[in-house]
């Protein structure tokens, strides 16, 4: 027995093997047709810019999130069994290709050490891992039954077919090993063991008959599955991979598309053809896993919004060919207009999706249709939009003016501030809400302590348009963006610091398209820089136990999770209390996407859910870095804290406390 000659006979015990090749033709024809009709349906979408550029970056992304299953593995049970099945099938596919190269192309590679270590041992064990994965999947679907799964016959059949294919594969391998008395059989331990279980009870002739019958059964089932797969969610190995490749490589905060109002025939989306091809590919990439809906704050507190169901219902229409005359919005439960307006635009869904589906831009696209074409959206949001139109801020009824917070601070206006390093942008949320004026004042005081020369715009500030854009009034957003950019140009503003992550995101990710040419910093970033440079020095660290609430528009939308932590690092003697849902996994305060201006039902409030999470820690201080978060968390905490002593503090307030006046 020379290990260098180790191999096995391909098509052992099978006569008329040619039938397999004949069957392969219709199999591949049906499967190709299935893929082709899907491809054709994506092609009806509008162009999507920049989704196929930077191939190296995209391949790396594909490597991480498809092959290495990084995002998928964030979830323990489902992530692990999926990876087991996925990697197992990759190994089995490679092994099949090896057989094809060896047997059909006549290149003898299935030999020797490669045969023993890879083709036999490695593939045999990976197959077992995949089988265990399939069993775990079955357990979840039929025993533990988590609520978020979609229970279809299709999904059940997929698991059954997988299990049958794998079990019959091992039976075939085992019987062959026994019948041929394969000297290398032990290198395939699972197959070898399976064979050994049969050997005492059946003679070789019987096993050969079993083998022939099961071989053809296995083949027909496998081919049948290949032909069927493109018509099921088992198309996802292809679509999910494509979708991951075509991912949005920019920050999530910059993923909303602008509209060319001179040429657009329809504002927003109410028909599949108004989506881009990438939006349509998204729909077919969905594996129904439900992580988006699980992560959705609106859904978590019992509202009806479900990003997964939105994707699945849109996919339903895509597969039916169109949504006909009816229009998408309101055509199904998940696509009801009032559900679309429950979204806080926090992007938890986008972050949670293991296959890079972008639910948020689609929700905003449909909101645009409701707002701009139909003018039908919640009255309270209409009030906010109306106020932005009339007064350039959403806080109708505010008794404050934009210049109020500056009083007694002696800060020059941008027009008279020669040589100012930066412009401090307060934003509506800080200047027009009394509570938040202290936050922005703290920022100003810190800059003064650091000797930073800065200016403000006072009454010349207008809403950045973030609220209008997320609600769906793109037209209003665009006009505000242009007006603000003109103001910045007029005063030659080159650098902006703001304490509002929403303004920050809009400036950094959305204004450049409209001609902005300035740098923007969130104050956590800018103040952190001043600490590093030694221009600010913490002298009085407190005893506070600080829990940090990551703002969505900083963490998820812009990937900035270290900045607030670095800023808080030495503010207190105790380390930061990390919340269970933190960093990019943070849970929304409930105030984004125009929801700050909506009265939520008292039993379904996003801020209360988050407040309870915070109150479950030992913290006595909640650090926030956003004016919306400040208001929402303060309301939520005060409503739930009882006798507990705990307060909500803005990052700048905390830092300012730790750096007392000299």
């Amino acid at each position, binding site marked *: 027995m020379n290990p260098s000659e180790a191999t096995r006979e391909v098509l052992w015990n099978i006569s008329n093997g040619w039938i397999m090749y004949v069957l392969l033709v219709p199999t591949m024809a049906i499967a190709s047709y299935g893929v082709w009709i899907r491809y054709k349906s994506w092609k009806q979408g509008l162009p999507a810019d920049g989704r196929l550029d930077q191939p190296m970056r995209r391949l790396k992304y594909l490597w991480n999130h498809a092959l290495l299953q990084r995002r998928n593995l964030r979830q323990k049970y489902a992530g692990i069994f999926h990876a087991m099945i996925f990697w197992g099938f990759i190994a089995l596919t490679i092994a099949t290709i090896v057989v094809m190269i060896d047997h059909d192309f006549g290149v003898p590679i299935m030999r020797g050490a490669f045969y023993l270590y890879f083709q036999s041992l490695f593939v045999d064990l990976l197959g077992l891992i995949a089988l265990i994965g399939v069993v775990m999947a079955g357990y979840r679907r039929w025993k533990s039954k988590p609520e978020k799964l979609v229970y279809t016959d299709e999904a059940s059949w997929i698991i059954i077919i997988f299990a049958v294919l794998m079990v019959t594969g091992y039976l075939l391998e085992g019987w062959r090993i026994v019948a041929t008395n394969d000297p290398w059989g032990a290198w395939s331990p699972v197959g070898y063991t399976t064979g050994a279980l049969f050997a005492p009870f059946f003679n070789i002739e019987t096993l050969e008959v079993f083998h022939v019958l099961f071989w053809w059964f296995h083949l027909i089932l496998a081919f049948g599955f290949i032909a069927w797969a493109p018509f099921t969610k088992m198309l996802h190995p292809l679509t999910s991979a494509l979708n991951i490749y075509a991912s949005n490589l920019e920050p999530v905060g910059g993923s909303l598309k602008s509209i060319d*109002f001179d040429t657009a025939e329809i*504002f927003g989306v109410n028909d599949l053809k108004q989506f881009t091809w990438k939006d349509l590919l998204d729909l077919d990439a969905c594996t129904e896993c439900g992580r988006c809906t699980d992560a959705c704050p609106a859904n978590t507190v019992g509202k009806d919004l479900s990003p997964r169901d939105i994707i699945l219902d849109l996919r339903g229409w895509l597969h039916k060919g169109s949504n006909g005359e009816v229009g998408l919005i309101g055509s199904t439960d998940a696509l009801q207009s009032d559900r679309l307006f429950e979204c806080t635009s926090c992007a938890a869904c986008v972050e949670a999706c293991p296959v890079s589906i972008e639910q948020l831009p689609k929700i905003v696209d449909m909101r645009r249709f409701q*707002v*701009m*074409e*139909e*003018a039908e959206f919640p009255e309270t949001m*209409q009030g906010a*939009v*109306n106020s932005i139109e*009339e*007064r*350039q801020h959403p806080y*109708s*009824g*505010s*008794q*404050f*003016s934009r210049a*109020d917070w500056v009083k007694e601070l002696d800060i020059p206006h941008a027009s008279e501030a020669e040589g100012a390093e930066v412009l401090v942008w307060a934003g509506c949320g800080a200047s027009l809400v009394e509570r938040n004026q202290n936050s922005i004042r703290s920022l100003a005081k810190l800059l003064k302590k650091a000797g930073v020369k800065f200016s403000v715009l006072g009454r010349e500030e207008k809403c950045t348009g973030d609220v209008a854009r997320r609600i769906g*009034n*793109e*037209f209003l957003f665009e006009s505000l963006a242009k007006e603000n950019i003109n103001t910045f140009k007029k005063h030659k503003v080159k650098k902006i610091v703001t304490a509002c992550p929403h303004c920050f995101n809009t400036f950094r990710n959305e204004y450049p398209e409209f001609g902005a040419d300035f740098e923007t910093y969130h104050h956590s970033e800018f103040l952190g820089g001043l600490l590093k440079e030694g221009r600010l020095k913490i002298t009085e660290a407190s005893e506070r136990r600080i829990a940090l609430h990551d703002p969505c528009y900083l963490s998820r939308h812009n990937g900035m999770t270290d900045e607030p932590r670095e800023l808080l690092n030495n503010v207190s003697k105790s380390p930061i209390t990390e919340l269970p849902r933190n960093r990019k996994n943070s849970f929304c305060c409930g105030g984004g996407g125009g929801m700050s201006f909506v009265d939520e039902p008292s039993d379904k409030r996003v801020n209360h859910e988050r407040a309870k999470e915070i109150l479950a820690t030992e913290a006595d201080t909640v650090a926030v870095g956003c004016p919306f978060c400040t208001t929402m968390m303060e309301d939520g905490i005060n409503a739930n804290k009882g006798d507990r002593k705990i307060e909500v503090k803005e990052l700048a307030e905390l830092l300012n406390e730790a750096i007392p006046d000299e």
Partner: protein
Amino acid sequence: MNILVCLKQILDPEVPVRDFAIDGSGLQADPNCANQMTNIFCENALETALQLKDAHGGKITVLSFGPDSVKDSLRKGLAMKANEAFMVLNNTGHQPDSAATAKVLAKAIGKMEPFDLVLTGREAGDWGAGQTGGLLAEELGLPYSAFVDEIEPEGEDRLILRQQTDSGWNKISAPKPVVASITNSDHNLPRIPKTRDIILANRKPLTSWSLEEVGISEDELAAEQQKARIKLLSIPEGKSDCEFIEGDSLEDKIDNLAERIVAIARSV
């Protein structure tokens, strides 16, 4: 039916107290201390007209008397789906009173095709006089009803006006043409214009006349203003005092509080 809706542009009634300012003359609010916007009751009037048009057809014209900025209000009216807009430009820098406004509006209406129905808001959010509608009817020599919140046609030549009263409402049958001032109700909440209509509103006709063109001189306007004059406009000074009532027990504190209240009430 041919409907005219008069729109008044006013200073944002929600202007924060500390932003509110009086201009150098001491007689009127500083027009720059806040944004200009359409008076809400005028928008209720436009909404009432739009609903009438939606149900029974017809044409809506919006008219305003004021500085160049009233174009914004008129454009918004067009975006809400009025058909045509007219304005009489007031570049005197003075804010006219109800009588002067009614005179100018009546002159402008005289230049236009006849209307079946002329609507104004119940009153404006700046002065709240509530006079323009009635005075305009007087100038036009037409019947008038105030506090109307619903209008229905009655045959070819008459309209039924529903008028809010303290105890309910009156339904009044009036011959066309008629003037009505509109109050707000649940069903005339102004609609939000669609973005498409906002964009298209810029392409609709908007005619601007000078005072001379409608046949009234600046002097005549000034003379009209002499009938009721504002002597002085001032912002009340807010004063607040805080006093803590002491006492040994709760009952004590309550007694002391009651005594103190009585003392203050007597001193006022």
